């Protein structure tokens, strides 16, 4: 059903640079969304098993043809264990970092410096993923403790936990916000994907749907999720060697229906990966990229 890209002038990926500095495996990277606008250089954050986060900047120099990358900052002394995940706020000013030490740190980027302005505690064990919503008002974190926490950014850079979402029966591997709605999705070691939305009266958050029907739900750990640009489709990847594409057009907050749920399974992509698919991303050029170990595929 899905075609592999390659040949015929289709998109190809070419290696550009290798950034060295971390002393243990790198678990996550995130592009600063505000970089490259208004003449600012590209900025990238990486987080690692060496307990640090590194900020990389691409400098343009007058003479060279290809701009070089330098490590602008090393954020250490915040986490006492592996830093597993990092995510920039939409305006690029704040960076959230989630760690196996069960905390999430919030860093503020001001004039080339990074200060740790908050430490969010509450999870009982390793934090696996952190995600800002599109407006930058909410931050979601998830953990091996099976819960998802939603934090609200208050004036004065304070964070208040507005909800603790229970429902998953095993570790939650990833959380992700819908691109245009305050709807949250989570992927879990319990093989399911859950869709969370705020109650009509705004009192609390609830699980609107669990994507796990027999026959078209994943049959092992779901590792990552990604929406397309418009948010009407979502792709998931799993230890079951498959990708699944879901129709996410219907707004879960509006869902009052009985049976099933607002989102539907569209298709399953299998046979392209021989090992666990750890990550998947829907790019703005409408391709889906999935990776496992040293190989990646593009659809």
């Amino acid at each position: 059903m899905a075609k592999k890209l390659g040949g015929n002038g289709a998109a190809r990926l070419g290696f550009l640079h290798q950034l060295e500095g971390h002393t243990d495996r790198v678990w996550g990277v995130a592009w600063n969304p505000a970089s490259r606008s208004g003449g600012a250089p590209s900025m990238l954050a990486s987080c690692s098993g060496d307990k640090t986060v590194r900020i990389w900047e691409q400098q343009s120099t007058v003479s060279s043809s290809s701009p070089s990358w330098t490590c602008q900052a090393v954020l250490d002394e915040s986490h006492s264990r592996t830093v597993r995940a990092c995510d920039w706020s939409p305006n690029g000013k704040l960076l959230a970092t989630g760690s196996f030490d069960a905390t999430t740190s919030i860093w503020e980027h001001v004039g080339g410096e990074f200060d740790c302005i908050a430490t969010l505690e509450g999870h009982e064990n390793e934090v696996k993923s952190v995600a800002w919503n599109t407006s930058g008002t909410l931050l979601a974190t998830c953990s091996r403790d099976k819960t998802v926490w939603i934090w609200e950014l208050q004036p004065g850079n304070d964070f208040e936990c507005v909800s603790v979402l229970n429902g998953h029966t095993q570790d939650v591997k990833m959380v992700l916000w819908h691109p245009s709605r305050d709807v949250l999705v989570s992927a879990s070691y319990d093989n399911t994907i859950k869709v969370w939305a705020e109650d009509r009266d705004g009192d609390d958050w609830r699980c609107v749907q669990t994507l796990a029907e027999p026959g078209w739900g994943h049959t092992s750990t779901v590792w990552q999720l990604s929406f397309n640009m418009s948010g009407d489709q979502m792709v998931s990847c799993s230890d079951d060697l498959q990708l699944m594409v879901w129709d996410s057009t219907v707004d879960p907050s509006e869902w009052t229906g009985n049976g099933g749920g607002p989102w539907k399974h569209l298709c399953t992509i299998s046979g392209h990966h021989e090992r666990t698919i750890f990550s998947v991303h829907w790019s703005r050029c409408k391709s889906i990229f999935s990776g496992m170990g040293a190989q990646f595929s593009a659809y």
Partner: protein
Amino acid sequence: MASQLINANPVVHERKARSVRQPTSAHDDLAVEPIDSLEVFDHVRDIKDPEHPYTLEQLNVVSEDSIAVDDKRSHVLITFTPTVEHCSMATLIGLCIRVKLMQSLPPRFKIDIKVSPGSHASEVAVNKQLNDKERVAAALENPNLSQMVDECLASSEE
């Protein structure tokens, strides 16, 4: 932790005689030999059982036959048999095997570790944990667990 051993009377096997490996060709010193199951077995056979003063080989937890290697695809599948069906040491043993192979094999290798089918009551759950790289990484950051692994991996003086 209970003072009673999970398996107080394990069956101990003779250690298999170690063959001296002959170089396959005299002039090919720079060629890298493909890794095979005997080499992988050599790495894991002396791992100490967490509970008893015997090696995994002596307790028949691992054997050369329980290892499948595909060098071209950089893949190793190793199945191990815990001494009893409800062995709560199964995940620790599996973790020791993984750590030893991570230390001993070239980084290109993908390692799958499973309990041999039918040998454990929580087979699916144990296998899932042992092959989840995130769970493994987090477990190894636990100082108590990491110390237990180190003790099992400490080389025995013969």
